[in-house]
């Protein structure tokens, strides 16, 4: 399938999802065109609305990259949520333990601590996958819950702020707060940070041997082995990078937005990352766009409800439909070779379109 056909199919899929959503809005007794107008204007063209979109898009983008990198090596990291929690925990602990560093030193070190936390959390499923063949989907999913409860314990116990009415940690030093990119709003520099990482990762995958090894292992593990690529090392490297990316998303939530560690501080961003990665067709450079799109939908949903009275749950339906329709649109009429994708465990949506592109050429 060439990219033009693909783009057209994705466009039709998006339109279809919005149309079905439009009928729901109609059923709810409102004008769908007016509702969608408010939704898109408020989340992308309005100053305050766009700042909300950016705030939501930052962790989504990093979580999306945390899915993309391992997936390119054939590993399905659905543990982004847990890695965000552990990253946030490590970042907070560091920030509270060393409150007096200058910001130029402190902020990078907080990110480093968070990255280490996320990478450590991802190292367990990575090791089990590479050396024991244990299914990473299950392990990462289980570890998400463990991570959430660990943070819940930390903020209710050792990190609990004095006199806190409900479990949260002390505030991190004001010097460590991420700079605001849109004056007087909450929009912090997190998205800019994610954007630069997306660029770096894109060039790494595209132009360096170690990046290429990832794709090689992901697309054809046997060929990679013949080419002398260490498959185990590649899988572990990809997962460690993924974990550190998700971990930094946790740090962004803490020092960019909330300035404290809360129980349940990530609102399912790890799972949103899967959708971001999937809609971006595993291309890091497209991920910022899909993250903005998804963040815009969920940020605009609330505004739409307040302005027009359309139930915001309609947008959740649209999000689900977007994924269903785009997935269906990207599946070629006939699937390609299964053997390549056997290692992927997944049905092969991701590897397929590139493979069949070669076939048709």
């Amino acid at each position, binding site marked *: 399938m060439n990219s033009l056909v693909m783009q057209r199919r994705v466009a039709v899929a998006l339109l279809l999802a919005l149309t079905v959503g439009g009928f729901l809005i109609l059923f709810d007794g409102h004008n769908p065109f007016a509702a969608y107008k408010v939704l898109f204007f408020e989340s992308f063209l309005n100053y305050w609305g766009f700042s909300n979109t950016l705030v939501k898009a930052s962790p989504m983008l990093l979580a999306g990259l945390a899915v993309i990198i391992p997936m390119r090596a054939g590993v399905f990291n659905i543990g982004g949520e847990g890695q965000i929690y552990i990253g946030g925990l490590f970042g907070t602990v560091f920030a509270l333990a060393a409150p007096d560093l200058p910001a130029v030193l402190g902020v990078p070190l907080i990110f480093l601590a968070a990255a280490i936390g996320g990478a450590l959390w991802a190292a367990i499923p990575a090791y089990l996958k590479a050396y024991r063949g244990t299914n990473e989907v299950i392990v990462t999913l289980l570890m998400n*819950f463990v991570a959430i409860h660990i943070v819940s314990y930390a903020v209710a116990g050792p990190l609990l702020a004095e006199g806190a009415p409900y479990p949260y940690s002390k505030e991190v030093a004001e010097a460590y707060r991420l700079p605001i990119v849109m004056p007087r709003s909450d929009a912090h520099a997190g998205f800019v940070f994610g954007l630069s990482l997306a660029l770096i990762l894109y060039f790494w995958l595209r132009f360096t041997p170690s990046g290429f090894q990832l794709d090689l292992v992901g697309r054809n593990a046997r060929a990679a082995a013949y080419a002398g690529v260490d498959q185990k090392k590649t899988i572990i490297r990809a997962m460690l990078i993924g974990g550190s990316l998700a971990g930094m998303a946790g740090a962004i939530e803490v020092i960019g937005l909330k300035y404290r560690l809360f129980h349940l501080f990530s609102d399912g961003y790890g799972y949103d990352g899967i959708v971001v990665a999937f809609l971006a067709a595993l291309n890091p450079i497209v991920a910022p766009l899909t993250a903005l799109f998804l963040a815009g939908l969920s940020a605009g949903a609330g505004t739409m409800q307040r302005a027009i009275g359309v139930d915001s749950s309609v947008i959740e339906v649209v999000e689900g439909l977007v*994924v269903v329709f785009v997935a269906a649109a990207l599946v070629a009429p006939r699937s390609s070779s299964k053997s390549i994708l056997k290692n992927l465990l997944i049905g092969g949506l991701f590897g397929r379109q590139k493979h069949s592109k070669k076939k048709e050429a």
Partner: protein
Amino acid sequence: MVDLVLLGDVLAGTARLGTPIAFAALGGVIAERSGLYNIGLEGQILAGALGAAAGSFATGSALIGLGCGVICGLVSGLFLGYMSIRLRINQLVGGIALNLLLAGLTAFLSRQIFGAQAGGARVEGFTQVRIPLLSDIPVLGPSLFSQDPLFYLLIGIAVLAWYWLMKSHKGLDLRAVGENPKAADLAGVPVFRLQYLAISISGALAALAGAHLVLSQVYVFAEGMSAGKGFIALAAIILGRWSPIGAVCAALFFGFCDAAQFKLQFSSPEVPYQLFLILPYIASLIALVILGAKASAPASVGLPYDREHR
């Protein structure tokens, strides 16, 4: 004697909190045994809960509510099957999409059906049934033999599912599809029909979990009331080694830990209750690492079957 009372309370809580997880886990076992992941359990619990609440709300009969819930589950299962079998969408992505879709749709429809009233409309539910004689046993009686009818239904379905999957001819066919669909196909087993059957049953069982939440626990529908039970069920499948009885036992263990942490939060606040919440996940992970998943997980789970490819 205080400890016995406490034990009885925890056991009763185990049955109550474990039942929905067990229903969903049973559904997951049947789907995975046929070679399909059902990550959509979470959303299907919501679909079942809404169906049950709406049916009971409209007719005033909990039984009809139960039927409506199960039908919603069946439909959502068929839809997931269509995505996984016919469209061959990546099964994890399909399941996540279904969860998003159903979370939104149930919230939307509940406001259409029950109106905007906060807290929702109270619906007719099941009452506890005391089994004569057995319910007179001290400690065990009041906790395990005075449960609501859906708990007894769970036990019946679990035994039935075990017999069907492990002892019947059709169950053997189903498991063959999950291990090696190509071989099953060549042997004349209707691969796709069995997968559709399995994924629909899976949806219906997940819906029973939702029906239990509404009709036996809180008597109202609330948005997002599945609260992660569908994901916990996925862990119970693993801990239960992909066996129907095993999955139900694992789910009840999850229920026990949940009940114990509730008690613990009040009786001894100095012990971190999160320990009990983490315990079942750690147990699942250890089971996965020590026993290995390969020995018991269906070999072809997650891989779409395409007839035209070798």
